[in-house]
Every structure is written in C-alpha cells, then in structure tokens.
C-alpha cells in the first residue's frame, strides 16, 4: 500500500511543536500503513527507542520503507496510534506500587475502548508489547471493571476462567500430546492394579 493511500491518524498539527513535526511511518502485519507524529511515539517506550536507534532524518522517513510492526494488525494499531496522538506530550505515569492501583479512564479512552472483547484483548496485548504505560493502565482498568458486582460464577463466565477440573484435564491432555506412551503406561499400571498385582515391575 502506498503512503498516499495509508490510513492516516487524525493529527492536531497546531498542538505539535515545530521542531517535533516529524511523522514516522509504521506498517501493521496486514500491511496497513500509519503516519505517527514523533511526539505521539514518545508514549510508546518500545517505538521511541526504536526510532531513536534508527536515527532517521525527515528524508529517511519518506524514502525508506515503513517500519514494520509484525505482531499487531491494522485495526488494533489504528486504535493504538489514535490513543498516542490524543495523549501526545502527556507525562508517562510512574507506578508507585500501590494496591489497588487507582486508574481513571478519561472520556476519550472510554470511547476508544468501546469495542468488542476480542479487539480489547488485542489492544491490551499491543499496549504491553509496545510498552505504552498509560494505555495499558486504562485498558487493564476496563477489564478490571468487568468484574464489578459479579459473583465467582459470573466472573468465570466474564473472564472465561476454567475450573480446577478443566485445568487439570487440559494439563493431562497436553502431557499426553507430548508423550503418548505416558498414557499407555498409566493405563497398563491401572490394569495391573485391577488384576491384583503387587508390583508394576
């Protein structure tokens, strides 16, 4: 996809200082391209370090291929960059280790995250991967809020939590898949026990 046809994130250019007015190009794993301001990129520790290491000039940004982000699709990346552009220039919060952690979800973020759980899952994953601290905070808070007022059974449904029995069955299945002989040995052992054998060996 050409740069001209790439989905461009809305940018409030007046808010960007002149010396920071450089836009990097990123490409999602489904080949969607985005232009993101340098100031917005600073919200992502991972991307910020990446572009600093690359040391691109304005010409490089235009002439070299877009920077590929291979683990994130275009739909998710669009949300990520929309969030970064909206919060560009804001200080990155420092974790004071308090529990419970107090996180407020601003109106913009609440609207941005008014999405299905599948996309929210990807957004959280992307925020973690790109190390966008505040986006991770608000998206985690959104997931935490799903638990409000729920009973344990409702929590299991909301978070798709397997029971202990289901966890154990899954573990057994995984072990068997890794070592089919283990199951055979176990069955043989059980059979011998039923027949009254004292020793397996």
């Amino acid at each position: 996809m050409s740069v001209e046809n790439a989905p461009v994130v809305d940018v409030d250019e007046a808010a960007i200082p002149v010396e920071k007015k450089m836009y990097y190009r990123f490409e999602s794993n489904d080949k969607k391209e985005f232009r993101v301001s340098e100031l917005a990129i600073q919200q992502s520790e991972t991307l910020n370090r990446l572009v600093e290491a690359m040391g691109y000039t304005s010409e490089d940004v235009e002439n070299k291929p877009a920077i590929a982000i291979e683990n994130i699709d275009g739909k998710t990346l669009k949300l990520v960059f929309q969030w970064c552009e909206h919060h560009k220039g804001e200080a990155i919060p420092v974790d004071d280790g308090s529990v419970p952690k107090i996180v407020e979800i601003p109106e913009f973020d609440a609207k941005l995250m008014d999405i299905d759980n599948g996309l929210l899952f990807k957004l959280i994953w992307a925020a973690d991967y790109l190390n966008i601290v505040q986006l991770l905070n608000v998206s985690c808070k959104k997931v935490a809020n799903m638990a409000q007022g729920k009973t344990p059974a409702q929590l299991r449904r909301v978070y798709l939590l397997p029971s202990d029995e289901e966890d154990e069955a899954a573990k057994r299945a995984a072990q068997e898949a890794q070592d089919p002989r283990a199951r055979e040995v176990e069955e043989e052992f059980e059979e011998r026990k039923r027949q009254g054998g004292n020793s397996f060996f």
Partner: protein
Amino acid sequence: MKLQKLPHVVQREIVRTMSFTETTLLSFCSTRTKHMIKNTNWKVPRLLFTITKKYISVHLCHDNWSNALSLVVLYVDEFMENTEVLKLRNSSLEFRFIKLGYYLDYQQPVEYYGNSQDVIQVLNQFLDDSRYELYKHFIDLFPNTPKIQLMTEVGTDLELVPVPEYVTDLSIAGEEVDVNYVEEYFSKCQDLQNALVGPEIKGQIMENSKITTVKRLVCVDTKYQVKCLVFKFNGQVASFQGCRCKINVVIDVLKLWISNEAFQNVERLSMNAEFSSFDNFPYWEENVVLQEIESSQSDPSKRPENCGKKYEIASWILDPLECGNFRDITRTIDGKRASFHVSTFDFHLVVWN
C-alpha cells in the same frame, strides 16, 4: 475476555486495578486465579476476622482502617436457595456463595453490623474445619502475610476458634466476659503481642494472667477490675478505659513506678475514668497527686512536644500525647525519667527511653 491468555504482566496489572472485593471473589474461581492474585504481590495492610457463634466476617482494611472488603461467612443448617457452589482445592467441604442486596435485609439471618452483600455459606456441621480452610484461603493470597487480627465474640465456643501461629493480635467483644474465658482465648495464641478486651471482665484475675502479661493491652470496660488489672500489668503499653476508682490508684501507680516495685517494662500507661453517682467517687484532681508525688514541671527545651509513640493495639489506636503540661518524675534506683499528666477523667504516664 480470556484473562488467563493475557501476558502475566498484564494479568498482574488487571488484578492490581481491581477493588479488594473483586480480587477476593476472583480468588474463589480456581486455584490458578488464586495463584494469579498471589503473583500480583497483592498487599493488604490489615486482615481482620471477627468470629461469632453464627458467622465469621472477614475484613480487608486499608491503613486508615476504612474497610476495603467485608465478606460474611455464615453458618447455616441448610443452604439458601440460589446459592453458587464454591470449591476450594484439596477440600471436601462445600461452600456456597450468595450476594445479598441491602433491600433483602429480612433475608439476612444474622445480627450483622456491617453492610456486606457478599456471603459465603457453610453448613453448621463443618464449622470447625471450614474456619481453618477459610483462614488458609485468605492467607495464601498474600506473598507477605498482612497484619492479621482476630476478634471473637464472647460466648463463641473457643474449641472452634482456631488461632493460627501467625496471629499476634486478639480482641474479644461483648458485654461481660468470665476471666477464664479470656485466659483460655489468649492462651490459644502462641505469640500474643496485642490484646483488646472489650467487655467487662468478671472473676478474679490471677498473678501472671495472660491478660496482664501481654505486651500491649487495651481494656475498654475496666470498671471495678481496675486495681487487679493495672497493678498486675507487666507489659509495655496499656490503656484502661472506663476505670471506676479513686485517684489513690493513680498515686499508687506513680509510687510503684518511682520505687521500681512495678511497671518496670512500661513505656506508656493510660487510664480513663468513668464516674457514676452510684460509686460517688470524687473526680480526679492533679493537685491531689502533686501533694503525694514529688515531681517537676517538664522542661520544654528537653522534651519533644509529643511524647510516646503511636500504638496500634488490636485495632485500637493510641495517639502520641501532647506533653507540654506534663510533670516529670524520676525512678529512684536508676534515675530513669517519666512524665505524667492527670486531668478530671484521664491519667497518662510515659516513660522516657
């Protein structure tokens, strides 16, 4: 939302932003969720279990004692309708969970003073085992054991009140309590550091009683046991509230400290008077004390404005004392200094380190 498919660091952040109530209820979902919570380095300043004949209430509290969670474990002959089954790993006990709304007050078959809606039900026949199971469940949630306090209502069968080894703070609540009951209860604690006795103690308090040898003690309704309790107290910090006695007791306390005949370990001792027309005891007056006890006005240049640390004794807070108008006394044998103050209703003694 598949919570457990998210990276570990994300799971941790999600749990950290949950309220204590949701986190606690999540811990009952499965063993994995319980481990997940523990791995978030979940911290709660205080965990208070209140044990009565009919229920246990579990309070997770913030530093300022505001309740972050109140959960009631209710003992029933049979489970209520519409309850959810809760299973704890390696436990054959069956627990049931229900949320009781405020508007369903009539359905709450307990004289519960809190406002919790979260109720775990346990059948009466499993009362004994279930208490251990529940303690264990809660304790296992924390990588570092929080400050745990047990409060027991008078009349609860003490054989069914387990006091785990990590508990150092015990309280007892009620109107009146037999001294033997308190002794038995306190004896269950291997390392009793702080004790709070809410009810009036009935019966004779013996020498070396568990009550008077505890390190820090609060008696809320001391009444006529004041002499026994105060003079036998051998710990570091004590507050005796509702004392019914004449000022002579205060004078004797000071004399005993000065002569080193008692209170060798005391850091702070406070008494609060309760007067009634029935006793006809005169109000306490500092002048009476000063006539009997040799003392000097505290020198503000040599003393801090506040004396005594802040103490927390099984949920009872003793704030530092303003000592600008305190009087200084000296222990004869070693020259150790202390300051005291007497007012109509209060007496405070603080020993300087």
